[in-house]
């Protein structure tokens, strides 16, 4: 279901819990699907003894992928025209993430309506792990 420009207001928000207690297995699953087999995401021995981190951690792109799920659930399938993020903190096994979109602007360009969104994904402590923006086509 697509959004309507006429029903959107600046400041409107949409929020979803996108993962609860992130498992190492889901990180492995993401490595397999994406093809990014960097051992810092899946190999506890390498990560703790060689890379110097307390444990494996999620691919930034897994956090962005989960954030994107919130976005497509909100704006509808095939509606995104832009999506960009900064990875502000690492995401660890056991983390639970909540992704939120806030309406920044509703505008019209060349007869097409768009919504601009600010994106923020936080962990269970309220610390932001992903910060970004998106634009989607919306109905009039």
């Amino acid at each position, binding site marked *: 279901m697509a959004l309507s420009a006429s029903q959107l207001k600046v400041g409107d928000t949409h929020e979803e819990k996108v993962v609860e207690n992130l498992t190492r297995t889901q990180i492995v699953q993401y490595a397999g699907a994406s093809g990014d087999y960097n051992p810092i995401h899946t190999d506890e021995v390498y990560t703790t003894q060689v890379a110097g981190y307390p444990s494996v951690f999620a691919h930034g792109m897994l956090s962005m992928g989960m954030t994107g799920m919130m976005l*497509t659930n909100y704006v509808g399938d095939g509606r995104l025209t832009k999506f960009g993020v900064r*990875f502000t903190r690492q995401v660890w096994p056991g983390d639970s993430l909540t992704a939120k979109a806030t309406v920044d602007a509703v505008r019209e360009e060349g007869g097409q309506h768009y919504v601009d969104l600010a994106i923020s994904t936080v962990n269970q402590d309220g610390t932001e792990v992903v910060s970004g923006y998106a634009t989607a086509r919306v109905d009039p």
Partner: protein
Amino acid sequence: MAIEKFPVEASHILMFARAIGDTNRIYADDEYAQSTEPGSVIAPPTFVQASAQFDPDYRLRPKAGEAWFGSGKEPTGVQQTSSVGGGGLHAEQHYEYHRHPKPGDVLTATVKPGETWEKQGRRSGKLIFSETITEYRDQHGELVVTARGVGVRTERPVDQT
């Protein structure tokens, strides 16, 4: 770096959607997808990252007959020659969608380097950022997705305190 052939396949989209925990049927059920606005299965917004699978030189995939830097008998399979302690992390990723890829597309990717810059990090020492711009085009030469990624090399592992 370039990817000559990135075939977008339904089973790959299904596996990718499962990995990000997305149960939207548009990624899994062709019959359902036909009833949606896009009219077919489409790829989730971050799917083009999986083009790494089709990059013959991709550094972060073990290759037959070559030493791998992850653990086996020892914590790492290669001698650490670099004094850089932190290694590489992903700092930013930006996508512009001209349309959304779907099964049957055969994409190519051309990658060009963007800017590089340095910054002093509070939690990880000197940070060296480098940008790449990737253009994904379809079998007709039409631009499908433009991606801009920023990687960062840290002087030491990111402090967690």
